[in-house]
C-alpha cells in the first residue's frame, strides 16, 4: 500500500506496526512467563522447591535434554527433524563404555587417557551419525522424518545387540575417575549445568550472529528462495545435523558417568522431550523462525513440571508425561496463528 499517506493514516499504521511488534515480543517471552508462573506455583506448593539444591538438581537433570535441544533447534529451524537422538545417545553411550572397558582390559593405557579417548569417541560418533543423516537427507533426497525414523531403530537395536540385551557397565576404577564429570561442581554450579549454559550461549550466538545461523533461518523460511540466493542449501542442512550429532555426543559424555552404564532403555523418548522443548520454546515445527533462549526455557520448563510433581502429591508422578503433554499442547495453542 503506498498512497500518499495522510498523517493520521501513517500514524495509525506506525502504531499498528508497533503494536504488532509488541505482541510478537510478548509471544516470544510467553514460555518464560509460563516458567516463572510454574516456579511461583512450585514455591507455594512445597518449601523445598525454591532451595538452591533443588534448583541446581533440576538444571543438572535438564542439561542432557537441554544440550540436545540446542542442536535440535537448528535442525528444526532449517525445516528438518531428527527423531533418532535418544537412540543415538544410547548407542554412543554403549560404544563409549565398551571401548573404555576394552582399553582398560588391555592394560597399556593410563585411565585418564582411556576416559579422554571415550569422550573423543562420543563426539566423533555424534558428528559422524549427524553427517550420515545430513548426507542421506540432502544427497539421498529422503525426508528427514523417514531417515531418522530408520536410524532410531538401527541405533537402539545395535546397542541392544552390543549389550546382549542387558547392560554395558563401566568398570569401577574408570567410574571413579569419570564420575566428577557429572557429579562435580565448579564455583558451586554442577559441571553439566556449565556445559549446558556454554552450549546454549554458543548456540544462540551462532544462530543470531553468524552467516551460518542466518542461512539456517533462510532455508527454513523458504528453501527455494535460499537456493536462488546462492546459499549452499545442502551443506548448511548437513551442518545442522552434524551440529546436533555433536550436541548428542556432548550430552552423552555428561550422561555416562551418572549411572556408568548403557541399557536398551537409555535415552528412551529423549527425542520427544527434545522436540517438545524446542516447540515449547516458540520455534515453529515447520521451520523458519526460532530462538535458542526459548528452547532453553522450554527444556527447563518441562523438567520443572516433573520436579514439582515429584515434590508434591497433588498429581501422581506417573502422570508426569501427561502433564507435560498438556503443557505442550497449551503452548502450541497459544502460539497458533502467530505467523
Amino acid at each position, binding site marked *: *500500500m*503506498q*498512497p*500518499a*499517506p495522510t498523517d493520521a*493514516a*501513517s500514524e*495509525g*499504521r*506506525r*502504531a*499498528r*506496526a508497533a503494536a504488532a*511488534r509488541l505482541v510478537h515480543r510478548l509471544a516470544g517471552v510467553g514460555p518464560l512467563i509460563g516458567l516463572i508462573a510454574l516456579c511461583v506455583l512450585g514455591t507455594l506448593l512445597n518449601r523445598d522447591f525454591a532451595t538452591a539444591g533443588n534448583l541446581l538438581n533440576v538444571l543438572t537433570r535438564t542439561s542432557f535434554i537441554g544440550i540436545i535441544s540446542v542442536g535440535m533447534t537448528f535442525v528444526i529451524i532449517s525445516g528438518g527433524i531428527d527423531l533418532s537422538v535418544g537412540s543415538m545417545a544410547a548407542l554412543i553411550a554403549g560404544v563409549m563404555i565398551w571401548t573404555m572397558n576394552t582399553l582398560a582390559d588391555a592394560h597399556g593405557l593410563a585411565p585418564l587417557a582411556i576416559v579422554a579417548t571415550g569422550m573423543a569417541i562420543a563426539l566423533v560418533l555424534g558428528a559422524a551419525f549427524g553427517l550420515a543423516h545430513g548426507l542421506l537427507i540432502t544427497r539421498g533426497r529422503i525426508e528427514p522424518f523417514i531417515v531418522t525414523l530408520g536410524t532410531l531403530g538401527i541405533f537402539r537395536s545395535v546397542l541392544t545387540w552390543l549389550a546382549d540385551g542387558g547392560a554395558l557397565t563401566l568398570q569401577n576404577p574408570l567410574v571413579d575417575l569419570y564420575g566428577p564429570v557429572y557429579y562435580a561442581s565448579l564455583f558451586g554450579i554442577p559441571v553439566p549445568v556449565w556445559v549446558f549454559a556454554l552450549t546454549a550461549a554458543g548456540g544462540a*550466538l551462532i544462530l543470531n*550472529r*553468524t*552467516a551460518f545461523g*542466518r*542461512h539456517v*533461518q*533462510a532455508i527454513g*523460511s*523458504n528453501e*527455494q*528462495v*535460499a*537456493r*536462488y*540466493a*546462492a*546459499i*549452499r542449501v545442502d551443506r548448511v542442512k548437513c551442518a545442522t545435523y552434524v551440529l546436533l550429532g555433536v550436541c548428542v555426543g556432548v550430552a552423552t559424555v555428561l550422561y555416562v558417568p551418572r549411572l556408568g552404564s548403557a541399557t536398551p532403555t537409555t535415552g528412551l523418548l529423549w527425542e520427544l522431550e527434545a522436540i517438545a522443548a524446542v516447540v515449547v520454546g516458540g520455534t515453529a515445527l515447520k521451520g*523458519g*523462525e526460532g530462538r535458542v533462549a526459548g528452547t532453553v526455557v522450554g527444556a527447563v520448563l518441562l523438567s520443572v513440571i516433573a520436579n514439582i510433581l515429584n515434590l508434591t502429591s497433588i498429581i501422581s508422578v506417573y502422570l508426569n508425561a501427561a502433564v507435560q503433554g498438556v503443557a505442550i499442547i497449551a503452548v502450541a495453542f497459544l502460539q497458533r496463528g502467530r*505467523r
Partner: protein
Amino acid sequence: MSVAVKFHDIRKDFGPVRVLHGVSFELAPGRIHGLLGENGAGKSTLMKILAGYEDASAGELLVDGVPRRFEGSREAEAAGIVLIHQEFNLAEHLTIAQNIFLGHEKRKGWLVDDTAMRREARELLAQVGLARDPDMKVRELIVAEKQLVEIAKALSRHARLLIMDEPTATLTPAETARLFALMTKLRAGGTTLVYISHKLDEVEKITDDVVVMRDGRFVAASATAGLARQQMANLMVGRDVSDMFPEKGAAPEDAPVALRVTNLTVPGWVEELSFEVRAGEILGFAGLVGAGRSEAFEAIMGLRHKQAGEIEIDGRTLTLRHPRDAMRHGLTYLSEDRKGRGLHMNLTLQDNLTLMTLERYGHPLLDLKACRRALEKAVRDFGIRTGDLDSRARMLSGGNQQKLALAKFLQPDPRVIVLDEPTRGVDVGAKRDIYFLIQRLAASGRAVVVISSELVELIGLAHRVAVMRAGRLVATLGREHLNEEELIAHATGTH
C-alpha cells in the same frame, strides 16, 4: 441474463487503516469493464467485497438493483458473481475435473459421480478452448492453462459476472489473445466481465468501459474509446507519465563480451542456445511461456542440470555448479517468481537484502550495524518506500518488493545480472523506476539480460532482443527490427 452492479459509498477499514474511502460507481450489464489503478488503489479489495471474500465496513452494494451483503464467496457465487484470483485457487494434486467441481461435487447417492463430472468438465473445457483431458493433474498444466481451468470452474458455477484479477500477468501475447477471444465470447453470451490489469494496451484492446481508482477512491469512469492510453496512465498515477522509458544509450558495440554462452542444452527445455552480451548492453529475451528462457538461465546459474554448453564470463571459460559459483564470478539471476524464489516474505528487509553477501558482514560475528547501513543505503538508492525499516518483506507493496529484490541481487555487485520479468505485478510508477534503474545499471558498465513477456518493455529498454521458441534461439533483433509484429512473428513461428 447479465448482472448489473452498483457500488454506493463503499468504505473498508483494515484496523485503523482505511483502504476504501467511499467508492461509488456502476457497472453496466453485459460489458467488459476495465478496472485500473496502481497497486494499493483498492481495486482488489473492492472486488473482494463484490465477490463475498470481504465485508464492506460501510456503504451499499446493489446487484441488479437489490441491496446485497454476501456472507461468503459461496453466497456471491450463488448470485452468479465469481472472482478469479491473481494467484489461482487450484489444488495442484487433483485433476482438472476434480478442481472444477471442488466443493460442488456431483453425487450419485453417497458417492461422487465421476463420470458425470468428467463429462461436464469436458464440455466446459471445450467451451474455454482448452484441449486437455479432464483427468490430467493440474500441476502438469502451464500457467495459461490453469487460468483456463479457473474460467471453466467459474462457468460451472454459472457465473454471470466474472471478475479477473490481472489474468494476463503471466501470459504470453498469443495466450492473451486466446483469453481475449474467450472473454468476447462470454460477453456475447451475456456475462458481465470485470478485468483488472496494469497493462494499458490490453485494457484498450479488450474493454468497453474503464473505471480508474486511486488511493482508495473512485477517480474516473469512461467509455474506453474516449480515453487515450496516456490519459489512463495519468489518471492512475495522478501525474503525467509521458516518459516511461529512459533514453536508450548507444549499443556498446566495441565493449568486451561480459557473458558468452555456447551450445547450451538443457534436457526437455533448451537446445543448443548460443548468445553473448557485452558490458553496458541490455539484452532482451522474448518468447512464449515454456520457450525455455528462464530454464536456460537457471541452467547457466547452476540451478538446473545442463547436458552441454560452455559458459564464458569476461573471457574465462567457467564451470558453474551452484549459484554461489556464478555469484563469485559476477553473475546473479533474479527469478520471475518473487514470492517463491526471489524474497523471503517472512524475513525482514535487512535479512533479505544482506542474505547473499553475509560473509561480508561476518568477522565471524555479523556486524548488524553495517547490515543496517546497507539497508538504509539500498532504501535510498532504490527508492524503496516503507514506513518502517524493521518491517517484513511481505508488508511491502509489489513494486517495493521488486525494488528490494533488485537491490538484493545487486548486493554481490555482479558484472552480469539477469532479470526475469522484472516488472511483473508492479504498478506504473514503480515500473518506470525499475526501467530507469536498469538503464543506470547498463550505463555503469554492467551487462543486463532482461527476460520479459511484455514486448513494449523489451522494445523500450533493450539494445537487442533474442527471441526463443520451443527451446531454440530463432532470432536476435537489433534496434532497427525491434517492433511488436516482428517479435510476435518470431516467437510464434509465423515469420
